[in-house]
């Protein structure tokens, strides 16, 4: 009981923080920064405590269930389970780093900035923790408002265009999800007489295939825009490039996981038959995303754009892991989500650090940083290697397991006479090669060659920046060297997901 109260505290702490920040006098910049950081640190400590007490053998834990709109069967249901535990940890882990990272970069409207950081933290945690579709949708949409302001106020030159595009894109998916959600709950009521939005009630619903296909299309469109999957990705480069460093870190670190998490927790388990029906198509789109994102990353001249397009590529692995329906692939997908959050988040923070010094993001402006900023270069290289998926880093664990899952599924399909899945798996491996190419090209151009920077002399990393990068690198290597505990946490959920998505097939086959 006490633990579920603690989880509520974790969720509502940033909300309370938002209100508290609003009441502070705008002139007290240090106080605002300090409070924001303290709130995030406390939140991370609480999450760490809860994750440590999380029992992998059980499903939903630390749950709260209170009636919210009783007439409709909407309950405030939140809880920690194998699906969200790592992502909640990731969100809480990145929280303090995001605040620290913005320490120097943001001076305009400081109070609003930190209030919005707390606000988006609240919305993101709520989306992960929600166990009720209505609550999930409310938090899902609530993420838009703070992000709209973060990109639109503190972003680059084309910030208004980018933020409008971001919101209009994502809201379009959401509106269709809303229609599907209403239909789904209404169908539940029609068939069983239960008025409920609980995931647990909705997942057991046995819909006819054509309804499943429509609903998956609606939910899937919303999630696919968020992932983003090719061809719905065009908002991402704009949003990433125009967003301030903080916005990019939140986007890459957590927000992009919303799409894949949505598929994992809701999209696929709610509509298993349709998922199996569409899996080859979705797999094809994911592989296309891996390759297309990688190819585009190869030719960018802006550091942020390289990382933005690499995100499209890396999240493709999450999708193929989820769609392999193999335990190892699913677990790999979850680890890859966390890994990408850490690595891409870290890389964006590092872009921010160099941008603060030189006010340029052009690759051509830099060279020989290894001599100018040795510490920076070491950290950048390590994150690059993690992004490439070198063994001992988290990127390896995630991508390797996801690919392993894809291959396992491919062999099975091959044995059944369908070689398409195997072809996809092979193509996805090609993405790893391309990934090495564009990331090493970026690192090579920045770190080696003639010493060149738009603003000399350059100071190497200061204590604050070192602390941020040490924390991220520690997590990256921890997941790479000892992924055991993390995999243990998610194993139950991965098994459950697999059973739900494949389960109906087994019964069908028996008929």
């Amino acid at each position, binding site marked *: 009981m006490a633990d579920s109260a603690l989880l509520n505290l974790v969720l509502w702490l940033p909300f309370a923080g938002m209100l508290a920040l609003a009441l502070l006098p705008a002139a007290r910049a240090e106080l605002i920064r300090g409070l924001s950081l303290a709130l995030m640190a406390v939140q991370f400590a609480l999450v760490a405590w809860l994750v440590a007490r999380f029992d992998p053998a059980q499903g939903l834990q630390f749950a709260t269930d209170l*009636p*919210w*709109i*009783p*007439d*409709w069967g*909407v309950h405030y249901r939140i809880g920690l389970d194998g699906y969200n535990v790592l992502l909640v940890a990731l969100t809480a882990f990145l929280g303090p780093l995001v605040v620290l990272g913005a320490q120097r970069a943001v001076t305009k*409207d400081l109070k*609003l900035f930190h209030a919005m950081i707390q606000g988006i933290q609240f919305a993101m945690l709520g989306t992960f923790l929600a166990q009720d579709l209505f609550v999930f*949708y*409310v938090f899902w*949409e*609530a993420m*838009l*408002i703070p992000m*709209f*302001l973060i990109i*639109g*106020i503190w972003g680059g030159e084309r*910030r*208004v265009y980018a*933020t*409008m595009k971001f*919101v*209009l894109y994502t*809201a*379009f998916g959401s*509106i*269709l999800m*809303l*229609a599907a959600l*209403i*239909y789904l*709950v*209404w169908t539940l009521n029609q068939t069983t007489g239960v008025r409920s939005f609980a995931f647990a009630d909705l997942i057991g619903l046995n819909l006819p295939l054509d309804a499943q296909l429509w609903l998956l299309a609606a939910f899937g469109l919303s999630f696919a825009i968020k992932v983003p999957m090719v061809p719905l990705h065009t908002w991402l480069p704009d949003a990433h490039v125009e967003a301030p460093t903080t916005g990019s870190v939140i986007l890459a670190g957590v927000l992009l996981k919303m799409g894949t998490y949505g598929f994992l927790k809701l999209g696929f388990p709610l509509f298993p038959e349709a998922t199996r029906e569409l899996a080859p198509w979705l797999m094809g789109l994911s592989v296309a995303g891996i390759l297309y994102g990688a190819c585009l990353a190869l030719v960018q001249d802006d550091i942020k754009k390289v990382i933005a397009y690499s995100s499209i590529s890396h999240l493709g692995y999450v999708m193929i892991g989820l769609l392999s329906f193999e335990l190892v692939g699913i677990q790999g997908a979850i680890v890859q989500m966390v890994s990408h959050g850490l690595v891409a988040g870290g890389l964006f923070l590092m872009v921010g650090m160099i941008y603060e010094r030189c006010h340029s993001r052009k690759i051509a402006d830099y060279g020989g940083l290894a001599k100018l900023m040795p510490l920076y270069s070491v950290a950048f290289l390590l994150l690059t290697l993690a992004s490439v998926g070198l063994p001992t880093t988290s990127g390896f664990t995630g991508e390797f397991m996801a690919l392993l899952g894809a291959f396992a599924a491919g062999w099975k399909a091959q044995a059944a006479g369908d070689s398409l899945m195997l072809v996809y798996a092979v193509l996805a491996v090609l993405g790893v090669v391309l990934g090495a190419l564009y990331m090493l090209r970026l690192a090579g151009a920045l770190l080696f060659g003639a010493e060149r920077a738009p603003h000399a002399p350059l100071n190497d990393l200061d204590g604050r920046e070192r602390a941020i990068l040490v924390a991220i690198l520690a997590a990256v290597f921890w997941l790479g060297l000892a992924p055991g505990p993390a995999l243990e946490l998610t194993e139950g959920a991965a098994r459950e997901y697999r059973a739900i998505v494949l389960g109906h097939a087994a019964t069908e086959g028996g008929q």
Partner: protein
Amino acid sequence: MNVGAILIGMLPEHLLLGGVVTLMLAEIAGRREAGFAIALGAVLAALAAAGWMALTGFAGTPFPGHLSVDALAVTGKLLVLGLAFPVLLVSRDDFRDTRYYALLLSSLYGASLIPAAESFTTLFLAIELLSLPVYVLVMIGMQRPGGTEAALKYLVLGSTATAMLLMGISLLYGVTGSMAITAFADGLSGGQPLALAGAALVVLALLLKSAIVPFHAWAPDAYEAACVPVTAHMASIVKSGALLAALTVIGTTTLPASLLMLIATLALASMAWGNLAAIGQAGFRRLFAYSSIAHAGYLWFAFLGAGEGRSEAIVYYLIAYALMGLVAFSALPRGTDDAREDRLAALQGLFHRQPLAAVLLAAAMLSLAGLPPLPGFVAKFLVFQNVLAAGHVALAVLGLLASYLGLYVYLRVVQALFMAESPADASARPRALAWLALTLTALPAGWLMFFPGSVLGLL
């Protein structure tokens, strides 16, 4: 005649009438500056009376066959009178004479009467009493050179609605031989073409009063020409009055497919056109008028739902919509030059001048856009849920897509508030009493955001 029932059942209206009479006496006595205080007293007393009726679960029939007070009627009264309080508060600085308040109270009397109407005679009187003073109110502020023209346009189109309503009532009377509101349902159940024509005319008249496409053209002009308090009155109380009238007439009646399709088509057209046309507007009140056209579309969409759910959906929507509209109007910076302040450009950078007003104005805009967790979301959800549950899946999806079109407009206002530089000459700020109105509307809106269940449970 039951004197007791007349006295108590119409107590809020009596108090409003008392206010109007006192205002006239004050005018005669030359105490024109007392107008605001008298009106405020009358509205608060009427609100208290309606509140007492709601708490005691009052039900009575002051005029059998014409006027009957039930739970829904009390809720409707409570809604319009509750909205009248903030409207009055934003009026004080623009109008310090008695005429304005006498007209406002008369209009309010009509609005308060509408949900209790049991016969078309009463309903007709109530609607006219609601509308006639507003024609004058649009003109009285004379903020714009085009004010008279806009008022005339409103009057002519309003009179067209009146004519259609009368024609429809006569046709229904011709078929059923009754002036009771139930003649609408009885006529429709008979299935005669004449009755259908009558019902359609009544519906069309009410659509015109709610500013539904293609009968919407009066709204942008009237909203723009009137001054802020009158626009606030039109956007909240008059809109509620029109919808409550529709709810009184249609109620839980099962509509024939032809009428249903008529409503669905026009409502969808309103949502789409209101949202699209709002994009091009440079003035805030004109933008709000187009937004109100779109919202009238959502409100009328609720009639596609099953009979029992309609009143809950419409009343909840009206509460959320009118509250957030009033939040927006109270938060508007006001100075001396209305034409300049009404421009959207005048709102640029408001966050840096008036952070709280800007935040609340932005919240109002996003609520109108229907973004969760703001109150507008649950309201929209309820409407579309009912439409879908009635089996109109395709229409519900189309409606949701049409509502998506509106997002850009509201985001543009938020963008102006937060992401633009202040104009050099910006000195306008919300007025003192408007802050009180803002508090009075923002607090219940906040309650609605966190505890929608508590209000839905009451409806």
